[in-house]
């Protein structure tokens, strides 16, 4: 039964394989106070964190599901495993991982990528980070890159100062859920003036059925520093649903720059409901590059709170929705200070009955004078069965600002396809070429290795969808 690919999916999902489960600990199905306490106990957390988790659990119970966005009604919170500890301890050499876990990452290609162009790698399997490494030079310079649990143990002051200060558990139901059962994720700290030249990568893998992954990431870039963080994710194909509800908080201090790239490729049975937010101080730059290819449902709106003067926020995103998928994605830019600027470029593709929604919020506070906003969202619809919607919200409380909004909806026209096919290109290659061309403004911002992978993924999905 291993490696079996569900027949309900008509394309080849390369990462749909599953591995045997020889786990150290698996919590009982469903969620209650005991489960929450147990997670904290196993992790030997300080009392304040246990309290925080329990309080968050109460908030989660009280909060209702969002009344807008994608359909979440079939999530059964009682039918999910909330915590799985795959191994006794974390390793820093791939060889030391259990065979089936090592094989998983080999097949995804993480160790290979690490050798070639990464400054650090963190690999999360189910609830825990099982592998971690960081370039020695960076370590010497004071850069911290570890899992969130280790971060809490070793750097309690920093964690205490920032944790949940940007995304409190009261923010939304899934932030509350994450706050109560969080496990794993990355803790990144870049000291003043340090520029991390090569990217740090975190890789998230779900292996079990009916599992919930709730990683928690905190990135702090001190004054004048730079870091590029990349995350990737995959899961096996099951007929039951899994849940991924992460929380990511980023603090970009004065003159610093953080780039956060996501290549989300969950299998089509995963609900991907993620809260991502960054605070940008004076003259800093925060860039989200958000590519959502997989999952059953995604609701994700990376945000930048532009707190400091001249801070700049960017969201470049790609959403691809095929059969049975709904990508409800977008961005939020909140301008609190004068001379702040933001740019959102969203490209969505829907095919074979898939649905994409762009949902964005631009908010300019009073006194955020001379701020500028540029929003461009383009949707490409490949057939009659597919759908795309745009929900842009603007709350502008200051007059002295520049706001530009462009939106286009395009269907791949028969004329363009004929133009290409008449030059000797097959119809499916012509469609891929046009789709890759359509997302090129975003893919050109991504490291080459990832943009190639992204184009390959989309081509693969498309060849299955139209074939």
């Amino acid at each position, binding site marked *: 039964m291993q490696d079996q690919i569900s027949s309900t999916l008509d394309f080849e999902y390369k990462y749909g394989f599953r591995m045997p489960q020889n786990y150290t600990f698996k919590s009982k199905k469903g969620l209650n106070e005991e489960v929450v306490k147990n997670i904290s106990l196993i992790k030997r957390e300080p009392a304040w964190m246990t309290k925080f988790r329990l309080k968050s659990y109460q908030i989660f119970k009280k909060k209702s599901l969002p009344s807008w966005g994608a359909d979440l009604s079939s999530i059964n919170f009682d039918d999910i495993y909330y915590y799985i500890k795959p191994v006794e301890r974390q390793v820093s050499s791939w060889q030391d991982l259990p065979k089936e876990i090592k094989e998983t990452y080999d097949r995804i290609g993480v160790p290979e990528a690490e050798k070639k162009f990464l400054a650090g790698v963190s690999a999360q399997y189910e609830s825990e980070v099982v592998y971690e490494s960081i370039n020695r030079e960076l370590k010497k310079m004071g850069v911290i890159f570890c899992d969130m649990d280790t971060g809490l143990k070793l750097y309690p002051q920093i964690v205490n100062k920032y944790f949940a200060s940007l995304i409190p558990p009261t923010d939304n139901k899934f932030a509350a859920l994450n706050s109560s059962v969080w496990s794993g994720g990355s803790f990144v700290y870049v000291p003043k003036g340090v520029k991390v030249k090569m990217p740090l990568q975190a890789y998230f893998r779900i292996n079990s059925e009916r599992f919930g992954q709730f990683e928690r990431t905190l990135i702090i870039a001190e004054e004048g520093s730079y870091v590029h963080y990349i995350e990737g994710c995959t899961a096996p194909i099951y007929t039951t649903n899994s849940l991924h509800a992460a929380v990511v908080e980023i603090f970009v201090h004065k003159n610093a720059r953080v780039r956060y790239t996501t290549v989300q490729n969950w299998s089509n049975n995963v609900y991907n409901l993620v809260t991502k937010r960054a605070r940008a101080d004076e003259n800093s730059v925060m860039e989200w590059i958000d590519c959502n290819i997989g999952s059953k449902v995604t609701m994700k709106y990376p945000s930048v709170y532009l707190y400091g003067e001249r801070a700049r926020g960017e969201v470049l995103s790609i959403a691809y929705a095929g059969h049975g998928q709904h990508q409800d994605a977008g961005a939020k830019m909140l301008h609190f200070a004068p001379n702040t600027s933001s740019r959102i470029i969203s490209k969505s593709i829907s095919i074979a009955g898939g649905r994409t929604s762009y949902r964005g919020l631009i908010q300019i506070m009073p006194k955020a004078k001379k701020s500028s906003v540029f929003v461009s969202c383009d949707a490409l619809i490949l057939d009659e069965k597919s759908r795309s919607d745009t929900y842009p919200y603007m709350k502008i409380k200051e007059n002295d600002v520049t706001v530009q909004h462009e939106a286009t909806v395009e269907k791949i026209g*028969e*004329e*363009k396809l*004929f*133009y*290409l*096919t*008449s*030059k*000797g*290109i*097959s*119809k499916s*290659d*012509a469609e891929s*070429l*046009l789709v*890759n*061309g*359509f*997302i*090129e*403004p975003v893919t050109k911002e991504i490291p080459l290795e990832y943009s190639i992978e992204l184009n390959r993924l989309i081509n693969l999905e498309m060849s299955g969808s139209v074939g």
Partner: protein
Amino acid sequence: MLQLKTISVSINKKLILKNLSYHFKKGKVYAIMGPNGSGKSTLAYAIAGHPNYKLEVGSLKFEGSDVTNLSPDKRAKRGIFLSFQTPHSLAGVNVFQLLRIALLGKEDPLTVKQKIEKIAKKLEIKKDLIERSLNVGTSGGEKKKLELLQAAVLDPKLLIFDEIDTGVDIDALRTIAKFMSENRYGKTYLLITHYNRILHYIKPDRVLVLMAGKLVKEGNAKLAVEIEKKGYKRVVSS
């Protein structure tokens, strides 16, 4: 080389070409002329295999085999090339990407690149136009030159030029026509045009006149000169 056997072509159920028969011979240059709406472009699209240009009756034979039911890409692979009257703009796709995929398995990307650069030089196409999105923000003349560039790299047997001379300034026309005439290498040309001016550079072996979807007159190069002097109506009715 290309045989049209009593073809009738419709678009959206409207009949455009009516019972057209003709045998285009290998290595010859044909000028296809006619007033607006006479069916010249329809003929080009029908030969190239546009899915919306429905062949109601008749058949197309190319180099001895029936291509009537072949998709446009398969016709192109056999050696039919259409240079568009209004080439489409392709955001995020440059001419190298297009040709690399069109020649996949036939020529390696490096060779394709070298060919493009060499031909671009001959056609006086600026380097950035090759790297930029195809036909986005390019002038009429540049678009037509890029069509010609594609033709030269793809190396087809039959080339249909749908009004390569319109929207082109006189200098660009000279470059285009000169290139077409110097790089013909015995290929078959179908030149769809309103004017005689390109025919000063490339002398047609035969001139065909289409009116209201029918082939109404045929002659040698002199016919084009006559049309220019007298206009279609007088020439056809004489």
